[in-house]
């Protein structure tokens, strides 16, 4: 129904129908952002490499060499949060985008936008973290840029990273490759990062501290690919959570996806925090979790391989790809009902009561 909006026939990037200005919802990873990309950016820039809208572009060079190419900007506030900081996040975020094509991440750029007044000590700490994350992920930082903006024009520090990786031959992972009958896997507990940020940002305290899952996923992907080549899609479940990741895959592959609520790994503390704030964990951001769609036949093998890796210990098969309801994600509820898990609209808002 959403797709039958009149705007589908637009070819020129008219302003979006709701807001005459950008609002925070446009950056939420949901429907508003997807529309912004589809109707504002894509019509002016469309090309073959951009069209699949994967986490990274796959570029074919001479002699069948394929590289993955991706960019990401990091504006998280606070700069330090339980389980990580903006420095390592900026490395792992782009490494993960590259890894979602099956690539071995190789090179990164580092663009630092610094706000006047940022303590040198803070910058030093974050840069150290940035460098050690790059070392841990075996990527080299090969170019960079530094800008300073006036006090009040940035949250202390923003970082942009761009990455290049090399895709091994015989790997064909793309958002449009899901087939009916395939299995849907999630690599671990969901919502940890989003709720960790929210708990510090909003000063919420829970009995168990919620820690961000920030981590580089390329080695997990390598482990999975060693188990089987028949991994059809990978998606980094960042903003918009697994709901956005699954919706994007369902739409790109023109298939339906159904998953069981009871099978989705979820930490009790994250579940409790989501319950308190009236939020749905499927929509909450992750920074070290992926969703994978694989041939059903090899799903168990892939899962066993994932369990052998520290970042995949809680991995679970949560559902399947269907020919029914193409473009739509359904979840089966604990009481045997079902519901649509749509893209989030805009910003996640805590409920009143």
């Amino acid at each position, binding site marked *: *129904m*959403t797709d*039958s*909006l009149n705007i589908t026939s637009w070819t020129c990037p008219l302003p979006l*129908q*709701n*807001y*005459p*200005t*950008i*609002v*925070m*919802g446009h950056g939420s990873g949901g*429907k*508003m952002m997807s*529309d912004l990309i589809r109707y504002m950016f894509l019509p002016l820039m469309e090309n073959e490499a951009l069209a699949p809208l994967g986490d990274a572009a796959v570029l074919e060079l001479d002699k069948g060499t394929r590289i993955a190419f991706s960019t990401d900007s990091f504006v998280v506030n606070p700069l330090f949060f339980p389980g990580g900081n903006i420095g390592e996040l900026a490395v792992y975020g782009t490494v993960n985008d590259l890894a979602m094509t099956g690539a071995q991440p190789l090179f990164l750029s580092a663009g630092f936008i610094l706000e006047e007044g940022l303590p040198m000590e803070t910058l030093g700490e974050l840069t150290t973290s940035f460098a050690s994350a790059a070392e841990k992920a075996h990527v080299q930082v090969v170019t960079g840029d530094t800008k300073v903006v006036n006090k009040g024009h940035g949250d202390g520090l923003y970082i942009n990273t761009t990455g290049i990786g090399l895709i091994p031959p015989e790997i064909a992972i793309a958002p449009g490759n899901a087939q009916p009958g395939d299995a849907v896997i999630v690599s671990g507990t969901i919502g940890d990062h989003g709720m960790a940020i929210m708990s510090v940002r*909003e000063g*919420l305290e829970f009995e168990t501290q919620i820690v961000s899952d920030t981590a580089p996923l390329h080695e997990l992907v390598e482990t999975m690919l060693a188990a089987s080549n028949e991994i059809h899609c990978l998606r980094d479940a960042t903003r918009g959570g697994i709901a956005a990741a699954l919706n994007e895959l369902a739409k790109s592959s023109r298939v339906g996806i159904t998953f069981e609520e009871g099978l989705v790994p979820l930490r*009790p503390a994250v*579940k*409790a925090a989501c*319950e308190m*704030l*009236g939020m749905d964990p499927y929509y909450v951001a992750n920074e070290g979790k992926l969703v994978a769609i694989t041939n059903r036949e090899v799903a168990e093998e892939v899962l066993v391989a994932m369990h052998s890796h520290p970042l995949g210990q809680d991995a679970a098969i949560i559902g399947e790809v269907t020919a029914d*309801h193409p473009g*739509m994600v*359904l979840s089966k*509820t*604990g*009481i*045997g*009902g*079902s*519901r*649509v898990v*749509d893209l989030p*609209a*805009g*910003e996640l*808002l*805590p*409920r*009143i*009561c």
Partner: protein
Amino acid sequence: MKYLDEYRDGELTKKVLVEIEKTVTRPWKIMEVCGGQTHSIIKSGLDQLLPPEIDLVHGPGCPVCVTPLELIDKAIALASQPDIIFTSYGDMLRVPGSERDLFSVKAAGGDVRIVYSPLDALKIAQDNPEKTVVFFGIGFETTAPANAMAVMQAKNQGIENFAMLVSHVTVPPAITALLESPDVQVNGFLAAGHVCTVMGYWEYEQLVEKYKVPVVVMGFEPVDIARALLMCVKQLEEGRAEVENAYARSVNPDGNQPAQDIINQVFKHTDRAWRGIGVIPKSGYQLQDAYAQYDAELRFPEIQTIAPQEPSVCISGLVLQGLKKPNECTAFGVQCTPENPLGATMVSSEGACAAYYQYGRYAISLEEDKITR
């Protein structure tokens, strides 16, 4: 999670559903009053598992949805002022006023902040003595005690740069208005468990007596909902009309006395407009005269003249009265989506239209397929 997972148990819910199926012999229209309950029902898919005789209609119990357009426009006017920090529960930011919403005000440079409690707003006032902090005091009897507490603390602590834009509503007058309306034919009510936690359910005794309709106090999880439905259906089938409590782990007949005391100390009853429905007599709270200095409408008299008209295409008024289902609206899912809501019922995650849109679209499209076949 304790006290949650037990009440989401699939087997237990199914057992109760089987009981309902055995008990029901003819069609009944039953209204769940609270938007939180509507949300739970659709989110768990419980509505798809009910016998066809039971028609659940969604009541006016979403505080975000029923906040009148006029107050949204007033909120927007206040939030646009440079010397005001406007604070609100999160889901109010997306409710469209006549021309824009609070998100747009924020994008235009207004200082609009989401808070989780009105006491957080009070803290912001203390931290920003050069600004006036206005809190959007909305909600039913559930949020009224905390909002009353904030005003009381402001007075006790002499925090003068704090004010509240009050749009409180109360449940029993709304149920009475529905029962009085000739168009509304609801056989039984499932009362809002959280409201009753604060207020108790003694107020419903006279309603039941006068209108001969069962009222069952209901919780928010699938087992709670199924049990309350069963109790309601049993009453209807047996020709009884009583007040029953299916949420006894949280609700007692008299409610939470200290919470009621603080409401009565700070607020008094007033006539209140409900978005899409109209003015319901004595259905709202406003500040007592002793707290009038904290009333944003009195402190900023320039907003008193704001009196917009509601648009006509949206049927949220009919949805809130249980006369129409969200998918019966011509705009549902077409012109009206959560990103571009025409009415408040599409805005809040507690609104019936939003609940239908988020969780129910697939079920609705299957039903439509069946009909066309």
